[in-house]
């Protein structure tokens, strides 16, 4: 391709160096976390003198880590479900109907992505107090849903805009009801976009810390909160490291799947 263009070999090398340097500085530490979770030395001597699965076994039997894992999975599934429902509805409202304030709605839906997590967290904390909602799993789910909705909304909106409404109109002309049309015409076309959005949402919710801090009941911990709480306790270090490695794997898989599923829909991620 542009290899044919004179002088581009040097440019390419320069680009390669810049890209590689940044990747090494930020990605090597992640690899170290995963490798260290098998490191036999409890002080993480480097290079590892030997490998063991015993930290993984210890982490698996750690009650704190296990209950945090359960909370994280529940919160992730709940937030993803809420986001799928509301995100799809909002995308429909904005893409299929013209109404007063439509631009404002589409602007406001995107706001949580730009809003720092700490602001969302404090804001929701206040709102829950005002509404008298007891803090617990439900409040975590609501908190995570605020930023999860954006991904579903973006993915669904991009897909709906590209599809246009002609198939739906045809279906209605042929006598299908609103629900029938959605079920047999719209939903099958949306499915992969929603799946991609949902997978990313689960990963996002799984990783979130600051909104969770302000929306969880005292004593309730998700995995990132558990890691944060145990980070500087030396005797917990190997277990923390295993949990971190598990968290990397557990969130990389959904994102990788989302990339494969989404294909062309990927552009609407942010």
């Amino acid at each position, binding site marked *: 391709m542009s290899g044919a263009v004179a002088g581009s070999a040097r440019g390419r090398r320069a680009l390669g160096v810049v890209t590689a340097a940044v990747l090494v500085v930020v990605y090597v*530490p992640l690899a170290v976390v995963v490798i260290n979770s098998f490191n036999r030395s409890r002080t*993480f001597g480097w290079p590892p003198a030997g490998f063991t699965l015993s930290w993984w076994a210890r982490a698996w039997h750690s009650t704190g880590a296990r209950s945090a894992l359960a909370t994280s999975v529940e919160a992730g599934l709940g937030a993803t479900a809420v986001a799928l429902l509301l995100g799809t509805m909002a995308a429909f409202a904005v893409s299929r109907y013209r109404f007063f304030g439509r631009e404002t709605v589409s602007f*406001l839906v995107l706001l949580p992505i730009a809003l720092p997590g700490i602001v969302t967290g404090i804001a929701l904390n206040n709102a829950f107090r005002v509404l008298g909602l007891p803090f617990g799993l439900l409040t975590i789910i609501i908190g995570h849903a605020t930023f999860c909705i954006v991904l579903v909304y973006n993915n669904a909106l991009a897909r709906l805009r590209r599809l246009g409404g002609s198939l739906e109109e045809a279906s209605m002309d042929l006598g299908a009801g*609103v629900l029938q049309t959605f079920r047999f015409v719209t939903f099958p076309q949306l499915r992969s976009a929603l799946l991609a959005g949902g997978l990313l949402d689960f990963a996002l919710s799984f*990783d979130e810390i600051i909104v969770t801090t302000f929306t969880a009941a005292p004593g309730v911990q998700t995995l990132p909160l558990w890691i944060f709480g145990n980070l500087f306790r030396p005797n917990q270090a190997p277990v923390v490291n295993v949990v*971190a490695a598990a968290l990397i794997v557990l*969130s990389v898989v959904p994102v990788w799947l989302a990339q494969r599923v989404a294909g062309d829909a990927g552009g609407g991620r942010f």
Partner: protein
Amino acid sequence: MTRWGLRGVALVYLAFLLMMPVGVILWRTFQHGFGPVTDALTTSQAVHAFRVTAIVAGFAVVLNTVFGVAAAILLVRHRFPGRRILDAVIDLPIAVSPVVVGLALILVYGRNTSVGGWLGDRGFPIIFSIPGMVIATTFVALPLVVRAVAPVLEEIGEEQEQAAATLGASTFQRFTRITLPSIRGALAYGVVLALARSLGEYGAVAVVSGRVVGQTQTVTLFVQERYQNFDQTAAYAAATALVVVAVVSLIISRFLRPRGGER
């Protein structure tokens, strides 16, 4: 009926999850007028926090801009072994928890490690100081510029660059006179997104900074620390400042967003 239903759900959701909470913050901030707010934001601690955030976010955005353009050109214009892997790992920061990023950086660049110790002995400590915070912030915002620029590079193709090359333009001339002007809008969009993300980062920075008041405290850490110490005036005032920056960057990004197939 569906139409009203959808609209109703969207509005109720926005009202309860977004407008009300943010409204509460604004109201709490200004409930005693502007005086306490300006007082709270001009303490030496607050000013220092804003300065730290400006430095950290500034460096992170510059690094991400250089990296983002380089990686986007590599991905779109070149075929090389490992290209698909590069494409995949660029999105990794969305998937990895900021806390884990912080932990990973401590494991490699901490004072007790060989890399961190070596750098620390040469007067360049990474963890619990600004460089570590810059690395952490750069990481969490990594995909934003790449993913904004790459589709536009794809769209414009490379005929013009090739034409310039046959007319004798150097690589650098081609980049500054042809490539850069055509990706300008997308690049600005990515930079605004990266800036917003960098200003709001909490988890990774909380871990690697050590949260030393007056030294490594960013605005987000300042809000958290003040809130925990029941200094609500300062916490809300700084939170409002963050809201203003977020809203402004979102408005700017709306104008800059490249108008592709899916807007």
